[in-house]
């Protein structure tokens, strides 16, 4: 194996240890300190990327996450194309949006059914839940498989797709693959509509807090691949100004950088996107959301599961719209870009929230500096704040085990990379 192969394996090995730890100091009925530790690998990648050709970047950053590789590829190509002055045409935009739909569907379906549903329905894990609610688990598996199928058809394989290149796709499928995919997506629309109602019917805690939401905002579309960065504070800025407004800072207890906007923690992800972009939902999806009776914008993070279901329905609807009349492939195939010494910015909506990339290239298109700000680290300060407020309301006199479970549930709403493990928190409580 080459040295390059080995360097890509580092986060995969590290991720095996990926778990969170929560340490709480309690004095009376107040939490005086709450520290959430998350292992966050993208920081290492910023150094790996230095000296690499821009052509290698999309495939390398895809390895940061096995659940959302497309997000990393999309933010990377957006930044690269920004640096080299390439603007994707309508065909390329449509194909990329279709690919992103696949990732949203598979990631959200996994989280709703296999990770969050056991919390809500009162099971230790999906293995126990599968016996009582097999149809729920089967629905999750079917939707996840459909999302994966979109990735496989467009990206060549369902994990770490390989067709995304700066300037376009290396290959695109023909009608023999697209027609059956269109049928499968259309057939799943009803399931997705029902899923919205199902998530809204769940017994979710009423736990409203005050926090800013941040998401992309596009003039016409529900945002995925492009848009300005908007916040419920009224902020609306081009992607290139991200670092001027969002401050990353280090805390002693975490390897992941925290983020704040104007001194405050903030939320990114499905609930934030929906809060900022309800008016961009296609009519059938907007109707399904309205039928839930839940008032949006919502500042109850437990409603994230509803937002994910809405986004599955949205992504499926968008996939059907694109597949009903697939754009010609030729204009979306990769063409050589003209590298130049420049800096480029990219920000797209990963399933978990905005994913910001910045690269500085030399004249040959080699990376001189890279900056990657993933959604999980942006949400980290908000997760800590949420957990602190939620646990205080939950009641700190409860046994540690109950506190741990509730804290896990609160944090799992954010679908952080660590949320995958059923028992991902080591809880240490110091009571005075």
């Amino acid at each position, binding site marked *: *194996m080459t040295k390059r*192969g080995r360097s890509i*394996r580092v986060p995969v*090995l590290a*991720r*095996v240890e*990926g778990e969170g730890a929560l340490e709480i100091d309690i004095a009376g009925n107040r939490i005086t300190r709450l520290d959430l530790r998350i292992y966050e690998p993208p920081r290492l990648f910023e150094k790996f990327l230095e000296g690499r050709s821009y052509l290698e970047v999309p495939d390398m950053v895809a390895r940061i996450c*096995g*659940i959302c590789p497309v997000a990393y590829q999309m933010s990377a190509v957006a930044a690269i194309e920004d640096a080299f002055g390439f603007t994707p045409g309508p065909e390329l935009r449509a194909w990329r949006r279709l690919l992103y739909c696949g990732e949203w569907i598979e990631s959200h379906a*996994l989280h709703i059914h*296999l*990770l969050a549903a056991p919390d809500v329905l009162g099971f*230790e*894990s*999906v*293995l*126990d839940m*599968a*016996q009582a609610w*097999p149809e729920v*688990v*089967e629905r999750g*598996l079917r939707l*996840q*498989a459909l999302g*994966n199928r979109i990735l496989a058809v467009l990206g060549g*394989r*369902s*994990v770490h797709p390989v067709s995304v290149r700066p300037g376009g796709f290396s290959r695109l499928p023909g009608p023999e693959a697209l027609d059956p995919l269109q049928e499968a997506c259309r057939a799943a629309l009803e399931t997705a509509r029902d899923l919205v109602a199902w998530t809204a019917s769940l017994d979710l805690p009423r736990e409203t807090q005050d926090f800013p939401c941040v998401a992309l905002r596009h003039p016409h579309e529900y945002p995925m691949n492009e848009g300005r960065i908007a916040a419920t504070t009224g902020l609306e800025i081009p992607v290139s100004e991200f670092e001027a407004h969002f401050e990353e800072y280090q805390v002693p207890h975490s390897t992941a950088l925290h983020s704040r906007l104007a001194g405050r923690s903030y939320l990114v992800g499905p609930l934030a996107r929906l809060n900022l972009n309800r008016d961009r939902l296609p009519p059938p999806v907007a109707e399904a959301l309205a039928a839930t009776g839940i008032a949006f914008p919502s500042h109850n993070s437990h409603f994230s599961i509803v937002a994910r279901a809405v986004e599955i329905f949205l992504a499926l609807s968008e996939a059907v719209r694109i597949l009903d009349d697939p754009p010609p492939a030729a204009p979306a195939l990769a063409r050589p870009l003209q590298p130049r010494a420049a800096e480029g910015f990219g920000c797209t909506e990963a399933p978990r929230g905005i994913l910001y990339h910045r690269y500085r290239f030399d004249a040959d298109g080699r990376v001189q500096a890279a900056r990657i700000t993933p959604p999980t680290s942006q949400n980290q300060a908000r997760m800590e704040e949420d957990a602190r407020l939620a646990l205080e309301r939950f009641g700190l006199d409860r046994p540690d085990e109950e506190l741990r479970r509730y804290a896990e549930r609160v944090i799992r709403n954010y679908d952080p*990379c660590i949320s*995958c*493990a*059923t*028992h*991902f928190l080591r809880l240490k409580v110091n009571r005075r």
Partner: protein
Amino acid sequence: MTTIRIIGLGSPFGADRIGLLAARRLAREVRLPPGVEVIERDRPGLRLLEDFTGARAVLLLDALAGGIPGRVREVERSALLARAAPLSSHALGVAEALALAEALGRLPEAVGLLGVETGPAPGPEDVDPVWVQALCLRVPVALERLVPDRRVAGCGGRIRSRR
């Protein structure tokens, strides 16, 4: 027709390729009896459940971390299920996929795993072809144990070392 599915598991990296290489070799070099099919799956996670559909028996081929490098081991159904950890999508292994299939009633009764131990992690960077051959040669015996009423003997008989 009864389907007996042999599934080579792994990733394109290092010793983890063994299951994939063995499946490829079986598919290329062995005339399999009717009803026996061989497929490869690169880190399938829960997609493995789809491969159980329509299968009467499933034999998984994979690398096994730990043990004595090169030793072939058979792991039975109950032992596989006992290894399942609480489900985690970032560490969603074979055992967890099998446990979920079992909970959903989608796991065939006849399931086994044939693996090559690769020693302490991360294991060797290259796969010794002899290990692949050893794994292939054990396939007929493992299949007969899984499906005693089927004649599958000789399915590995034509495997020859390439050297």
